[in-house]
């Protein structure tokens, strides 16, 4: 049991985080909490990708030692961590930041328009204002 947890600690962490995030996105009625859930969800996916790239006994993907021009350099794939997931996740982080920015802007507009960020109150006030129109 203990070994199982240690071997899969990365998956346990990202699965738990994903479920927390997903629960917050679908189950919470406060819009800010939904947004927080969205962020947790996105970050757990980033952990997932980075853990795909992990490689036992390897180091960060930056060429070590002297690397002047013309120097003979033998690079072993097993010596460095897989750089591709890191690259993908840099992009995913940026996407997450951008989405959060836009969502926050929308939340500001919602709060200005309706004075609440609770979903049920919001629905009530939306109905009231559409009836008034």
């Amino acid at each position, binding site marked *: 049991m203990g070994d199982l947890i240690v*071997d*899969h600690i*990365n*998956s346990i962490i990202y*699965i738990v985080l*994903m*479920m927390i995030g*997903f*629960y917050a996105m*679908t*189950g919470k009625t406060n819009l800010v909490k939904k947004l927080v859930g969205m962020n947790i969800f996105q970050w757990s996916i980033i952990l997932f990708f980075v*853990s*795909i*790239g*992990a*490689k*036992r*006994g*390897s180091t960060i*993907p*930056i*060429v070590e030692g002297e*690397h002047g021009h013309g120097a003979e*350099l033998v*690079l*072993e*794939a*097993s*010596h*460095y961590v*897989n*750089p*591709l*997931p*890191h*690259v*993908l996740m*840099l*992009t995913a982080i*940026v*996407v997450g*930041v*951008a*989405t959060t*920015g*836009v969502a926050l*802007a*929308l939340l*500001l*507009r919602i709060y200005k328009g309706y004075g609440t960020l609770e979903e049920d109150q919001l629905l009530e006030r939306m109905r009231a204002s559409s009836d008034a129109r």
Partner: protein
Amino acid sequence: MKYLHLVVTGVTGLLLILGTLAMPDWGDPASPASSHVSPRYIEKGFEETAVPNMVTAVLADYRSFDTLGETVVIFTAGVAVLLILRTRRDED
């Protein structure tokens, strides 16, 4: 309907666990992710691009179109927030 989101979360979690158990072991140097495409970046990257940081080499050269997309995403967010929030008065 009240517990629908709990059920949905549970099903998602089950799917995640199911999929993760079938994934290669964590940190396995022989996993497909470490042995199919990425070795080229590590072994040839420095020779082909003269950049020692492989992440930068992949980010800005091999997959530079992704990074252009990433920058466009940021630009889109900037213009989108401007479109959503800024009024004419601020601009003058």
